[in-house]
């Protein structure tokens, strides 16, 4: 096998086969993938959830993760948010000519490790190679299927006034880590991207409190985007409490330096849950026993005021709107 990816590795001939046999299968292999058919045949049964997402993050490696880890966690988490237990993923790679095979292997090993942690298998896939400059090193698409956990009903329309808003942990770790790396900021070792598979946590949560009305992971656009979407979809108002938001001091530091707000920072291993207020305590107890829910807390409530709007009570008692983010995060000095 050569050291760098060439166009021929995606051309379907001997070099493609070599890439599959010497790089992809040794790292990702499992009984279903190893059948090497045009598609995977799966035995599922019951109600199925199905999702897909593409990953183009730069830099490809960052403290706490990589594009490979994200590609698995992101799709597993989307399935978890529908109340499904992820089982199988597809993996499509778009590689730029000239990418080092060693780097590809590093990404694939992260894919494998995350898949093992989440208990999912990569059962089908595809590789394309594009010319130099046509993509940035490596792009990944994953799609996933999972079985809906019985007796749950997770949907934005289930959100009602009187419910509590719960977040599973500190906000903004992922985006703060990535933007810090881009803008010359150094973070302590302990601050890393939070890319983790949440399916284990969600399973425990749904088992403990099947009344959970809605789950969503606040990725791009952060909690602000997610909550705005849900307020609009459910036709309710969401009122957060500024003093309850869990943000690490270092993430606040990044925000102050670059002019960001933690509510707008992307997360990759956090979820927001809506639950009837009388179940909040039980749910938090369940979440606190799981490693990815240790810092879970209530951050606000659903109201019938200002339907479709997200607002926040400030530390001084004022109320302000938390708007939908516009565009991507760029540091500002003004």
């Amino acid at each position, binding site marked *: 096998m050569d050291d760098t990816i060439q166009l021929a590795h995606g051309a379907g001939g001997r070099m493609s086969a070599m890439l599959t046999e010497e790089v992809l299968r040794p790292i990702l292999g499992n009984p279903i993938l190893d059948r090497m058919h045009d598609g995977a045949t799966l035995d599922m049964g019951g109600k199925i959830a199905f999702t897909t997402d593409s990953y183009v993050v730069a830099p490809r490696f960052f403290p706490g993760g990589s594009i490979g880890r994200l590609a698995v966690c992101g799709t597993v988490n989307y399935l978890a948010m529908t109340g499904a237990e992820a089982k199988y993923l597809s993996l499509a790679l778009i590689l730029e000519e000239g990418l080092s095979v060693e780097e590809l292997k590093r990404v694939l090993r992260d894919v494998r490790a995350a898949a093992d942690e989440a208990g999912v298998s990569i059962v089908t896939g595809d590789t394309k190679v594009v010319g130099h400059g046509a993509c940035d090193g490596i792009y990944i698409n994953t799609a996933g299927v999972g079985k809906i956990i019985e007796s749950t009903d997770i949907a934005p329309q289930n959100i009602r006034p009187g419910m509590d808003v719960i977040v599973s942990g500190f906000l903004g770790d992922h985006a703060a880590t990535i933007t810090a790396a881009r803008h010359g900021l150094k*973070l302590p070792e302990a601050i890393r991207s939070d890319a983790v598979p949440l399916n284990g946590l969600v399973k425990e949560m749904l088992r403990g409190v099947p009344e959970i009305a809605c789950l969503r992971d606040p990725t791009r656009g952060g909690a602000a985007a997610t909550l705005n979407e849900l307020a609009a979809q459910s036709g309710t108002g969401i009122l957060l409490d500024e003093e309850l938001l869990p943000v690490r001091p270092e993430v606040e530091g990044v925000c102050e330096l670059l002019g960001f707000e933690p509510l707008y920072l992307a997360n990759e291993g956090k979820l927001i849950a809506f639950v009837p207020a009388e179940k909040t305590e039980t749910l938090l107890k369940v979440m606190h026993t799981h490693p990815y829910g240790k810092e879970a807390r209530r951050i606000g409530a659903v109201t019938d005021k200002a339907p479709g709007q997200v607002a926040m009570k400030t530390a001084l008692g004022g109320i302000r709107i938390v708007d939908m983010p516009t565009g991507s995060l760029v540091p500002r000095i*003004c």
Partner: protein
Amino acid sequence: MCLAVPAKIVEIRDSLATVELRGVTREASLMLLPEAKVGDYVLVHAGFAMQVIEETDMAETEALWAEMNGGPRTVNLELSLHG
């Protein structure tokens, strides 16, 4: 019009300081604040230290409370102005 944040100088090499804010570090130039020393808290704007932060007098806040509670403002603020 200008975001500026307080940070602590943890190291100085030539006229380049490493500043720390809540555990986050970055470089800040001391070209505009040559008098800054390691250990100083400084105000950082666009990658430059702009001013040394001086702990404001507790007495000032007390005087403010006194004034609001109907008493005289006992601290002469003109005297406490720097420079």
